[in-house]
């Protein structure tokens, strides 16, 4: 098992498999950073995104682009609806964090039951076949799915980075994340920013569930398990640090993959929760190596830009 080819294979497959965890984690961490919301409703959004694509491509026989578009539109639409008619209402009522948490959890369960009624509980994949063409490069098997997963995830992360770093909307998001009231004084609409971050998260979720659903079977209760990994990565990465959480998601996937060298594979899932347990005890505010990278207070410059512009 210490053959370099095997190690490289585990590394490559681990990175490819981490792709959807990264996308779910970034979606979760972004909402937490901007809205200060532990949005477990994203598990429900994953279900909506998956079954929209599944229905579009298998029952309605739409082309792939149409299925993906429908999924993005519906998932983003539901996100906006939940934001306007539920989250915003709770915010105006000054509801406690616990109420938000419970609401989002109930929303996810509601969606899961609804999808169960509509689509049943048999595991389904987006395409009937789960096979993907493979090429062997230096003894390492690289499938089209692997390349698509890594490429799509990198593309999404770069786009998100550029959006946050170089666009006015991105700076507004940082401003609201840093101090919502101050941003408001400078004329930045927090509500608009919340909707924008929600839509971005919805797109990330659609991309993530696309990758998952083209490789493994999905049932309506699968997303609840998927969001747990996102929560773990967000906790270890440190609250409010979106890209750190993404790196942790990759790290957790690799840890699980490489653990096969030392422990039986049936213990791999336990390892994930063991890491979370230790991380929460030892680093309740995230891994210290990343603490120095605090988000610089760009809110002021962004707010000034808004006021000036």
């Amino acid at each position, binding site marked *: *098992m210490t053959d370099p080819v*095997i190690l490289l*294979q585990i590394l490559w497959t*681990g990175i490819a498999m981490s792709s959807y965890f990264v996308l779910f984690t970034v979606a979760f961490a972004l909402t937490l950073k901007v809205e200060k919301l532990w949005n477990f409703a994203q598990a429900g959004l994953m279900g909506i995104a998956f079954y929209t694509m599944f229905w579009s491509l298998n029952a309605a026989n739409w082309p792939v682009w149409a299925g993906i578009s429908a999924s993005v539109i519906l998932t983003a639409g539901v996100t906006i609806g939940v934001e306007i008619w539920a989250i915003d209402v709770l915010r105006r009522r000054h509801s406690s964090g616990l109420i938000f948490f419970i609401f989002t959890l109930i929303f996810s369960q509601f969606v899961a039951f609804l999808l169960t009624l509509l689509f049943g509980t048999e*595991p389904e994949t987006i395409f009937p*076949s*789960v*096979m*993907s063409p493979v090429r062997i490069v230096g003894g390492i098997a690289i499938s089209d799915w692997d390349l698509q997963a890594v490429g799509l995830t990198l593309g999404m992360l770069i786009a998100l980075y550029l959006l946050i770093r170089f666009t006015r909307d991105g700076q507004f998001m940082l401003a609201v994340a840093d101090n919502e009231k101050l941003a408001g004084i400078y004329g930045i609409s927090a509500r608009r920013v919340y909707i924008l971050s929600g839509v971005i998260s919805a797109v990330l979720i659609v991309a993530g569930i696309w990758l998952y659903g083209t490789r493994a079977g999905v049932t309506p209760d699968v997303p609840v398990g998927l969001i747990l990994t996102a929560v773990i990565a967000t906790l270890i990465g440190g609250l409010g640090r979106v890209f750190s959480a993404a790196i942790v998601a990759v790290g957790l996937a690799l840890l699980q993959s490489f653990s096969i060298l030392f422990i039986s*594979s049936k213990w791999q899932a336990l390892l994930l929760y063991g890491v979370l347990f230790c991380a929460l005890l030892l680093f309740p505010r995230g891994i210290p190596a990343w603490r120095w990278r605090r988000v610089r207070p760009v809110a002021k410059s962004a707010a000034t830009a808004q006021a000036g512009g």
Partner: protein
Amino acid sequence: MTEKLSRRLVLSVPAALWAGGAFAQQKEPFRFGALMPTTGPEAGYGLDFVKTYEMAVKDINDNGGVAGRPLEMIVLDTQAKPELAINAANKLIEVNKVSVIITAWSSVVKAVAPIANRTATLELNMGANSPDIANLGEYVYTVFPLAEVDVTALAKYTREKLGKTKAAVLYINNDTGIGGAKIYRDVFTSAGGQVVAFEAYDPKATDFTGVLLKARVGNPDVVHIHGLSELPQVIAQMRQLGMLQQVTSYSSGYNPKLLAQLGPAAEGLIVTSLAPTATTNPNVAKLLDLWKQVGRAPNGLPYLQYAWDSTVVVADLFAWVDKNKLPVTGENLRKALLEIRTFDLPMTGKLVVTDDHRIKKPVYLYVVKNGQFTPLDTIA
């Protein structure tokens, strides 16, 4: 007077028949329970089992019922989870007052067993194959061959007929996988083969790369995978890692959906079946005709044949108890099972109940060829 009586008799016969039929329908039905996963990941099989029970119950009732009384089934959902199965079993026994329960899925059969033994309720396994089922107590019997039947036959066939010398055994980490994998390992080894990898994977896993690479290191010439609904994903990832070895599995692999998910990657896969096909048993064709009315191909046809036959067994037990004028209790139904012993069943043939709680059946081997399950061999 005679003429008058005759006329009255003639006139009264249709009325009596009608009244008798109605009376039969009004008679207290013989009730049995079925614990099946009608929701959850295993519902694909569970719902089809239930549908088949309904077909069998209807067939029995259409033919006069059991000793003039209708047969009635009460189905409760287990999601194939032991904790739900325990609640459901208690409800069937305490609330619905059933004396016989049909179960499947090894973890469910095991979870229900202590309740069955404690309450003297007969538990009949119709689809689980963990070898442990034979040792679950005096009220737990199986009408489905346990893993030692088909897995033993498969392991021997792989070693002796196919000449494979090195096997990797991968299995799902639950009762079904653990029991079956151990049997395969022991039989293959005792037949002179070598098991180069023996690895379990988590039931919720989606990435099997590590397990497969561990298997690849041993350079096996056959890979036996003892899994459930995740089986296509394991085989897909195996092929994508460039592992082209012969793959074998047991009866859960005999599933048309697997062929659709794997396409050409399924070619060469060897699976087992424990029931005859429509070509060798006309009754199976009748079952398939009923499924045509449903509008789709059923999942796991051999299992459905056992589902049908387990209903027939239950009906025979009720008939024996009724004939001997005994009250319908689990104790008497168990007595009936052991008294009758040999059942001639329409879908799977002869069933002999033995004192060691095991049964023997012929094993039918299939290989995937040109995208279809093709008969490979039959091991009596």
